[in-house]
């Protein structure tokens, strides 16, 4: 370890050359956009339905749009064209209709949701100026505490657990008048990349029900993709927001460690865990982030105790969405002056050729938008995965020590029965790594490696505005495909864990789709930003998204409603 070699660069032209073979298959839409050319799209609802194809495995519809669904639905509520209650009822109906096949939700708190929606309608009738999220149906990952319904983190051992409090993010979103419709499925305690390790059963990918939605926030990603809620909260410890976002073709944001309060998040690996949004557009993710990104005296993820409450309260609330431009406001070459690093190691061996093609094509799109894209080597890239697993599992073994089946949740069971196989495997591995005689070889070295990765990525980010990688080495794979091969499952996290080691923010946006065994599957592009640089990162991601929407959707074979 400890490579000090300078990153190898390839000139931007190299990216283009590399692209020559792949761009042809994309219906690349002209960039350098003229406002007149796109004016007609602004009023259109971006909920689009997947065209029925020959395959019987595909779900009925997938929500996807390049402009804010939150705004369009919220505007209609505020104008009185519909009501929050009506919107909430229709989404709950959508959950009820599709949950038997998709299984995105593990519980629906319909009565509370409708009561919340009615309160929004009453407030609007009373002339209160409510915000963007008022009346917007929200799905919440099952490891985020809600005072309403259960919070079981996908585990039998917490089955029946009623949290006495709302997580800080839930308080924030309720204050913004978002409507919590229910809890979404997840790998048990967030330990998995497929949502198959949930005690509540697997969730299917809405694009192809024989495939996994990714994980561990698979329920949230599938729920947004299948239009069962408008936005959802997930949590990301090693990629658990970004990989399912990629598998389900939605936007997923993992904020900088510490930007969003972890208060109320069932801990997996505390020094990595982040709560973040999954949404159908970058703008929607940004709107949710604006609501949940704030300091919190009961969460010291970032803040340092300075014997002063105000400095311990963390970063001040910030607006991450208002500055985002609409398509018609985009100038020619909107990303002029931006520099991105396409990480060389993420496009090599073990990465699906179709995925590589989409990422390289996305890089070419960014160049067309005015940005400079260099292919850059991150020598620490390969070190991250083992270091991540040692540290995350060590922390997990500590955090899960409390689940002894005598305190809360299921108390009529034992740990051996109440915890699933994957969870027990990780607790044992983590305990081993921390044990006397082993902790120097594993835990300590992994900590040192974490530091190296952090230094490496931050040094790249001092030169580049963002790092570009695939969000996952493959598109969504078949259900059951990796359940019995934990190492293969671990290696699927290779694209995302380094970002968690360094605590950086990263957003996943759609880069197109690939065909696999007759199924059309989305591919996500991961953009990694600077610490607390969410505003800039989301701006770039949003620009990319709206400018390439037609290109990407032509490729996806969607048709508008």
């Amino acid at each position, binding site marked *: 370890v400890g490579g000090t070699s300078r990153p190898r660069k390839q000139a931007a032209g190299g990216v283009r050359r590399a692209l020559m073979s792949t761009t042809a298959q994309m219906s690349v839409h002209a960039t350098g956009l003229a406002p007149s050319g796109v004016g007609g799209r602004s009023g259109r609802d971006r909920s689009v339905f997947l065209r029925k194809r020959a395959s019987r495995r595909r779900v009925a519809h997938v929500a996807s749009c390049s402009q804010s669904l939150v705004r369009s639905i919220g505007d209609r509520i505020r104008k009185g064209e519909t009501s929050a209650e009506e919107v909430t009822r229709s989404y709950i109906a959508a959950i009820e209709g599709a949950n038997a096949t998709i299984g995105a939700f593990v519980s629906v708190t319909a009565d509370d949701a409708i009561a919340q929606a009615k309160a929004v309608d009453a407030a609007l009738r009373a002339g209160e100026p409510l915000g963007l999220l008022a009346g917007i149906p929200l799905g919440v990952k099952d*490891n*985020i*505490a809600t005072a309403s319904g259960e*919070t079981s*983190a996908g585990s039998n051992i*917490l089955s029946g*657990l009623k*949290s*006495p*409090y709302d*997580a800080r993010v839930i308080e924030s979103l309720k204050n913004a008048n978002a409507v919590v419709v229910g809890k979404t499925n997840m790998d048990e305690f967030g330990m998995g990349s497929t949502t198959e390790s949930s005690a509540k059963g697997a969730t299917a990918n809405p694009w192809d029900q024989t495939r996994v939605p990714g994980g561990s926030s698979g329920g949230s990603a599938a729920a947004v993709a299948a239009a069962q809620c408008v936005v959802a909260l997930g949590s990301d410890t090693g990629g658990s927001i970004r990989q399912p976002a990629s598998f389900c073709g939605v936007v997923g944001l993992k904020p900088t460690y510490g930007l969003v309060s*972890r*208060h*109320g*998040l*069932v*801990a997996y*690996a*505390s*020094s990595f865990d982040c709560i973040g949004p999954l949404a159908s557009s970058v703008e929607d993710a940004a709107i949710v982030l604006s609501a949940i990104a704030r300091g919190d*005296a*009961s*969460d*010291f993820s*970032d*803040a*340092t*105790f*300075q*014997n002063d*409450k105000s400095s311990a309260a963390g970063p001040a609330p910030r607006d991450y969405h208002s500055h985002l431009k609409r398509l018609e406001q985009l100038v020619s070459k909107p990303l002029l002056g931006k520099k991105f690093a396409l990480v060389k190691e993420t496009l090599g061996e073990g990465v699906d050729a179709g995925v590589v093609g989409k990422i390289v094509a996305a890089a070419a799109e960014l160049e067309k938008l005015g940005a400079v894209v260099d292919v850059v080597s991150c020598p620490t890239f390969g070190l991250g995965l083992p270091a991540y697993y040692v540290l995350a599992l*060590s*922390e997990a*073994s*500590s955090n899960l*020590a*409390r689940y*002894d089946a*005598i*305190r*809360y949740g299921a108390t009529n069971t034992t740990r051996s029965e109440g915890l699933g196989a994957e969870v027990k495997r990780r607790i044992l591995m983590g*305990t081993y790594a*921390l*044990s*006397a005689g082993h*902790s120097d070889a594993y*835990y300590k070295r992994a900590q040192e490696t974490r530091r190296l990765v952090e230094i490496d990525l931050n040094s790249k980010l001092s030169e580049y505005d963002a790092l570009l990688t695939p969000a996952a080495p493959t598109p969504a794979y078949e259900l059951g495909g990796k359940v019995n091969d934990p190492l293969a499952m671990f290696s699927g996290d290779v694209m995302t864990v380094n970002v968690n080691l360094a605590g950086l923010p990263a957003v996943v946006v759609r880069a197109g789709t690939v065909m696999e065994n007759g199924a059309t599957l989305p591919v996500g592009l991961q953009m990694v930003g600077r610490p607390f640089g969410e505003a800039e990162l989301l701006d770039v991601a949003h620009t990319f998204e709206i400018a390439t929407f037609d290109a990407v959707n032509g490729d996806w074979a969607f048709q508008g409603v």
Partner: protein
Amino acid sequence: SAAVDARDADADAADEDAWETVVGLELHAQVAADTKLFSGAARQYGARVNANVAPFDAALPGSLPSVNARAVELATRLGVALGGEIHRASRFERKHYAYPDLPHGYQITQRRDPIVRGGRIDVDVGAGATRRLRIEQIQLEMDTGKSVNKTGGGGGGTTTTTIDLNRAGCALVEIVTRPDLRGGEEAAAAAEAFQKTLRFLGVGDANMEEGSLRVDVNVSVRRRGDGGDDGAALGERCEVKNLNSFRSIASAVRFEVRRHRELIARGENVERETRSFDPANGETAPLRGKEQTLDYRFTPEPDVPPIVLSDEYVAAIARDTPELPDVAIRRLADVRGDHALPLKLATAVATHASTARYYEAALSAAKRSAAPRDVDVDAAAVARFVVGELTGEVKRASVAGRVEPLLGLPARLSPERVGELLAAVAAGETTARMAKGALRAVAAGDERGWRDVVDALFPPVGDGEGGGEGGGDAAVEAMCRDIVCGMPEEVALFKAGKTRLMGKFVGEAMRRTNGRADPKVVSRALTRALSEEV
């Protein structure tokens, strides 16, 4: 127990010869913050079972710790007072072990980067000697809950354990000392010294019966002359845990010393062990041996950031930290110092930090007030007035603090005002008797200035007449002669040996002066007048 004591005495005597006892302490003291170390739940002894439990204290999923600033402040104060180094960045760790009253499955503590390192306490070991006990470190950590075991009931001898989490998560300071103590009595005295210090500083109640002070001792023996404090020269040690009285500390150490020496005498080795102590029979018993050493799997606590303290913060705490009583006594009694109080008086002044502060403030106020009059103020007189008259009167008037009598007195009893009064006494403008009377009135609520209070209680008699302060010494002499002339029968009896009648003459003088005369001056003048009377 007489036999036990005799045996102890034998052991101690034998100890004098060839063997030396080496003892170090680990003390756990609950920090007197209103709330727990990481949650907002109240810290309260004797509350209803599980009444003070926040989600974090029960380790509810998703709950997070948040550091109690007051606990950090009190730990810093303790470190400052004991002369330790306050770490500008201390870190929390998790110490893992499974126990029903430890809901998280780990204790949050500071083993590697404690808030305080170093320091010392001087332990009174009798006969005016002190032993300096060095402190290794002081760390902040959270307490566990309480397991309550109930045996039987249903017959078959089953035990039911119930858990009370009121104590879970309360802030503790763990004080780890070096092995500087040389016997059971010293160990008990050291624990007592820590108890006094913790209470004096307001860091904790340090009540051993209530468990807010718990003591573990590490005991070993070595041949005298093996010397040195490095571990190589020490014998194998045993730890006796959870001693809950000073007597138990002394007995446990004595028992261990005997046991170790018997083992060595038999040619056996002392095994490193953790032991418990039974106060009923004064014996220790093994809890777990070296091979059963728990692997605590220490890891950094990711939910609590390092405690970073600025120089200004530590300096401010140092300013507010009272001098420890032993340090204060030495300073106040130093014959070459500014105070040079008799030892007993210095001890009385230093009992409470607030009393010592009050005395020093009153003394400097008195000096300021007396300076223009070119009068010296006697420190001992001020000290006597503060610990005697003042403390008595504020208690009598029920304006005294609950624990520290001179803490939080009303403004009319400020050290500045009392200093003025004492300056007037030093200048001879007010007698001690008048000062005491005025103090009582002011303590009881009189808000007027001293002069008004004094004049109201002791109305001035006309200038020059009968000994009032305007008349000077000549007036006093005249008044006394007049008294002697007016009481010929008493004078005759006095001269016949009934000297108690002096009180009657003084009383008459005080009556005539409305109490304003100085009884001492009067009595001297009367003596002269009586000797003149032939």
